[in-house]
């Protein structure tokens, strides 16, 4: 590999990307274990295999930019800067959670770091992202908004309406399609007639970009281009990240709709293996002990988050009555 293939990424940048991806991977693996221990009372949609998308996209954003996640939002939230503690506590159903235990796994978010409460109705976040982008434009804030959705969500009418409106008003919004090949159990070939979701961009009058969603640097770079365009007032972009969900759709999914061979193939393309290889074998920017140090940091963060969640108090049952309407503090 040449330095050019690094897209001018420095060692620090690369290690940061690696740390964030590893944090998501280990967070999700811990969630799985904690679910089995009965610590997490809900089902979970894990982000394992798609870490490069969230981390690559968010690496191209400003802290005050907005991200709207999906029903599979832990990766989006962690990448945007929501703390492990507050997400883990939310999953545990504790009052210290980022949504005070009102949201749960599918609604984690923290507006103070630009992460909307995740929206678990497929495709419904797209028009809201368009609205946030309209707001950014009206307020002249220079903020950019990202709506994540899957190839399944791409077929929702809401996404279509949102893209059209964003395009006619040239709004600073990025529609990031995480094409992980399956909408729950349904393969993409059954639900999309065009070869790529991004091919639809031309119909809305916006650029459509296809990127290897398991290559964090590639994702970061196409996002940067789209963000620059958006901030310049040139309007929205559609980015399709080709990736793969290495885990089941939800906790109860045995993945009988896909082959073990296909899974093995994609495990070889695991975005974490990819960045490790880039950092060590391909560029020599990091040593194994550098990586071990990152891994230790990540483990420390998670150990702390789990302990925090475990020790945090449960909400009072009657707290269910709070926040139906906005309450001034």
């Amino acid at each position: 590999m040449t330095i050019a293939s690094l897209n001018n990424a420095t060692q620090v940048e690369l290690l940061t990307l690696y740390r964030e991806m590893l944090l998501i991977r280990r967070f999700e693996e811990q969630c799985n274990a904690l679910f089995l221990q009965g610590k997490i009372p809900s089902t979970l949609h894990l982000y394992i295999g798609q870490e490069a998308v969230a981390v690559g996209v968010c690496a191209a954003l400003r802290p005050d930019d907005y991200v709207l996640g999906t029903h599979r939002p832990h990766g989006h939230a962690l990448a945007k800067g929501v703390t492990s503690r507050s997400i883990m506590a939310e999953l545990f159903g504790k009052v210290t959670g980022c949504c005070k235990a009102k949201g749960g796994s599918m609604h984690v978010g923290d507006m103070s770091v630009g992460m909307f409460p995740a929206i678990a109705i497929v495709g419904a976040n797209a028009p809201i992202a368009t609205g946030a982008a309209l707001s950014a434009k009206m307020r002249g804030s220079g903020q950019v908004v990202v709506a994540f959705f899957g190839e399944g969500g791409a077929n929702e009418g809401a996404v279509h309406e949102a893209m059209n409106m964003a395009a006619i008003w040239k709004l600073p919004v990025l529609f990031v399609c995480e094409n992980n090949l399956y909408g729950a159990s349904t393969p993409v070939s059954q639900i999309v007639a065009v070869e790529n979701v991004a091919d639809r961009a031309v119909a809305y009058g916006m650029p459509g970009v296809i990127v290897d969603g398991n290559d964090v640097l590639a994702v970061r770079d196409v996002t940067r281009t789209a963000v620059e365009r958006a901030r310049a007032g040139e309007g929205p972009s559609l980015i399709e990240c080709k990736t793969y969900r290495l885990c089941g759709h939800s906790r109860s999914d045995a993945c009988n709709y896909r082959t073990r061979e296909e899974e093995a193939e994609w495990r070889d393309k695991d975005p974490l293996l990819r960045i490790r290889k880039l950092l060590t074998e391909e560029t020599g920017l990091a040593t194994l002990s550098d990586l071990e140090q990152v891994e230790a940091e990540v483990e420390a963060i998670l150990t702390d988050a789990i302990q925090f969640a475990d020790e945090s108090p449960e909400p009072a049952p009657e707290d269910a009555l709070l926040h139906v309407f906005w309450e001034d503090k």
Partner: protein
Amino acid sequence: MALMTIAEALREGIREEMRRDPTVFCLGEDIGVPGGFGGAFTVTLGLSDEFGHNRILDTPISEIGIAGVAIGAAMTGMRPIADVQYGDFLFCMMDQLANQAAKMTYMSGGTVKVPLVMRAPVGSTRRGSQHAQSLEAFFTHIPGLKVLAPSTAYDAKGLLKSAIRDENPVLIFEHKLLYGSKGGRSEKGALSPIGEVPDEDYTVPIGKGAIRRVGKDVTIVGKLLTVYRALEAAEELAKEGIEAEVIDPRTLIPLDKELILESVRKTGRLVVVEEDNLTHGWGAEIAAIVAEEAFFYLDAPIKRVASLDTPPPFAPPMEAYYLPSVERVIAAVKSQF
């Protein structure tokens, strides 16, 4: 003080709030197009001349998009007023209203607010089934939404201002026959309740009902157009010695329960009149509240007068048969004596 129709009062309310607060803006279909209608019922007519097309924003025919855009803007510092051309189209955006707007504050643990206003015309006006429904009750069943139903010019402006300043999603239902819209947008059979509207800034509090007529023998609760049907019935009943008290809750959520209960405690009788169809409706909820909380004050069975359980029919004789008429209100009251 000026005499205004409801359409004019709403327009002035929007104008004053947009002048007062730069984050307030309108979006919707056909609301600001030069040479257009100013919305289906002229409420935003001329506002784009003052505020421009960025703040009186014409949208594609995309109801999900309109709702979602309003929500996203509201969550990030703006105060959108979304214009829904016909209330029936709210069903197109049901997910955005029911799953997104209504629940965002709750599921974020009270960390996010959604200060949006959505205005929707309702009422059967010879347009057949898909531009005629009175669907307020659907939205009163969704915790997290505030639902208003102004029936006078004064209330329309005052409640709209309260809604714009509220930190929650607020739906305002307006009746097509009450707008008093003029010219090509005027409605056959419209009542045009022109009322005095103060020139100075004022608001009508959300959650406070109004007694439109004082009486001692029966309480008639109506909303929007049926307030006027109830008042007409009350005048007829008075000729026969029955004095009806007519209550207009003005706000459906939150509901001024105590005003209704207080009246029923006095009169001992309740008739609820609404233009929505009968079954599982708003009237049933009012009846249930009274049965639960003022049972021992009731001197006769509660009666509901509503549209029939059919889609709104088109032909005028069928439409008239379907709607809650003054005669049906009178008959319901008399059955209680």
